[in-house]
């Protein structure tokens, strides 16, 4: 393996990991705040790609990259406010069942609206082709994904650390009772957080669309991988999701190099090993909400 090829391998793993990170952050922020594992995350990823497909001719790719997550995020807020909210005081399993059902409804709904056939989602012309850096040539679009994900992570971090709402979100995920006692209503915050999490899934869907056909089942594998990533990173942990996403990206990538047939299994093996050594995941502080 020449250094250029090796660098390309690492970059491929990094881009794959970046997509996992986006998905996992959405899942993790929802779990940390609301205590619900959102099984509809993969379907929302798909919905993001379809909405972008629908609006990209009118708004362009960048427009679609903004509008699709906003629309899907609004749908997420609607779901939280009308359905999920009723189940907060019930058994956590009920929320799980709700999102599980929601995943099926969304996927079948997509089939009804857009049909079974995959849609062509062409690469935005400005991002087609490759960048050359010495011996290394690398896809412009994949570089764009990497940069976008880094900006999104920084943005989310600043939002959580520096804004008043972010402070409430962090406090609420630690001790919701205390936040309420301070006279802060968590209800709108929970709605917002669910919307934010689903918007992240949608962004991942839009970023992914030009690399693959847009089709109803596109979110299934990515959705499953996101659960693995969150489990490895520790449920509800911000940095856990990021580290674990990048780790899983590299492990899957390297296994394709050495033993492609094991590529799919590799992330599960990694999960099993980490859970054996550290049942709460890499950065998980405790068995939150599952006690």
């Amino acid at each position, binding site marked *: *393996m*020449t250094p250029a*090829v090796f660098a*390309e*391998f690492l970059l*491929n*793993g990094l*881009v*794959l990991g970046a997509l996992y990170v986006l998905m996992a952050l959405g899942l993790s922020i929802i779990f940390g705040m609301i205590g619900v594992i959102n099984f509809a995350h993969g379907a929302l990823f798909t919905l993001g790609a379809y909405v972008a497909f629908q609006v990209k001719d009118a708004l362009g790719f960048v427009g679609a990259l903004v509008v699709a997550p906003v629309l899907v995020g609004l749908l997420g807020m609607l779901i939280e406010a009308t359905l999920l909210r009723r189940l907060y005081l019930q058994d956590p399993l009920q929320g799980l069942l709700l999102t599980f059902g929601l995943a099926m409804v969304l996927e079948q709904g997509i*089939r009804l609206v857009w*049909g*079974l*056939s*995959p*849609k*062509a*989602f*062409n*690469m935005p012309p400005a991002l*087609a*082709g*490759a960048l050359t850096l010495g011996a290394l*040539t690398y*896809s412009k*679009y*994949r570089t764009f994904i990497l940069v976008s994900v880094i900006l999104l992570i920084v943005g989310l971090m600043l939002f959580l650390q520096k804004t008043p709402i972010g402070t409430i979100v962090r406090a609420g995920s630690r001790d919701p009772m205390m936040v309420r006692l301070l006279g802060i209503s968590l209800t709108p915050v929970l709605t917002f957080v669910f919307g934010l999490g689903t918007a992240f899934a949608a962004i991942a869907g839009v970023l*992914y669309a*030009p*690399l*693959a*056909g*847009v*089709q*109803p*089942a*596109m979110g*299934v*594998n*990515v959705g499953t991988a996101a659960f693995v990533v969150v489990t490895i990173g520790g449920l509800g942990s911000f940095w856990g999701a990021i580290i674990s996403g990048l780790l899983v990206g590299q492990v899957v*990538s390297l296994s*394709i*190099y050495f033993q*492609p*047939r094991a*590529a*799919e299994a590799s992330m599960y093996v990694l999960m099993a090993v980490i859970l054996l050594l550290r049942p709460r995941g890499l950065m998980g502080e405790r068995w939150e909400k599952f006690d």
Partner: protein
Amino acid sequence: MTKRLNRREFLTTSALGTAAAAAGTSTLFFPAIVRAQEPIRIGQLIPFTGFLGAIGEYGKQGATLAVEELNEKGGALGRKLELITEDEANPGVAVQKARKLIEKDKVVAIEGLVSSASCLAVGDEVQRAKVLMINAGANSDEIRSKRCHRYVFSTEGCNTQYVSAIGNWLIKERKVSRWYFLTSDYAFGHDLLRVARNLLMANKGTEVGSDLAPTGTTDFSQYITKMKAAKPDLIFHNLAGADVTNFLKQYAESGMTIEVAGGVIDSAFAWPVGESLRGHFPIIWWQELTNPASKAWAARYVKRWGRPPDNQAYGDYLAVHAIAQAIDKAKSTDSAKLVSALEGHTLTGAMDGLKGRPLTFRAWDHQLLQPMYVVAAKNKAKWKDKWDIFEIIQEVPPRSASLEDIAIPKAESQCQLEPLA
């Protein structure tokens, strides 16, 4: 008895009662006229979910159009035809659905199937149940060779037919000899890889690399990087379904210029690649075929469904017509008689295969001998519309040669058909 019978009901009931008593069974309780009008049911198994899901829609539309056209002309044996479609999903589900179609819906035949794994499983099942099945979409040679069955026919081409068509053309016209294989890790892919390897070896070519990818792979970048490093002069993919779309898109996006070809292509998965599509492929039917019957059919399909047919729509359309022709020829819906009618049968009349040359089911392995078409991805500048992605380079074998030329030779086949009864 709580309800009084009126005179007419009394007469019918007593007459039938007598008839039933005479026949010694109560299953004859239906008046003969009602039974004659009951439709002839054809079962269709086709994927609507999973990585092959997109072609199910086309297959269903093709079969539905065939049934509608046949019914307009009076159906078969004076009875209407009815199509019952089920999702083949995966081999386990496909077998259950096949049982349901046979036992509950009492279909006279099953057609469809896309996944070779499902087709093999359902083939074993229909052979046990002794019900005719026409495979309209599964490619593994195994279905026609080692695991062929008396009750199973194939209108879909097999891997040997597809690979002979594209492989010989590539070696002769493109002079490529250093191949890199990328293969779907399931029955279809393995079989296609075996056939393609044999062809490459027979032509003294070199295999510079080979990878198996799980079905439903979404990111092919690592495979592509490996290919780039191995420096082949051809990348030959044995992928299916949505994997084809993902791979071809990502291949184009990687900026690689090495020639790419596939052992098989479904246009339903090539269309979504869009303007970045490139490469050469073998296909069983394409809308650019110029014979009048094919053009007329494509136009009818567009009128009915608002988009052009793909190769799977063609396959299921053909299979339904083949079943109807068998019923007409056998003058019966009895499965054994249908099987006899199809062995050595040449497609006739309105549905002669739409290829401007006679197509016949081989009697000894039940494969419909078909020409294949080598197609090339068309440059976007030459597209009439977004459906216009391929141009036909060559019909294989040419009109002057026998269709046997690309099929599995009898000497190499392991097919041993069971006795009919």
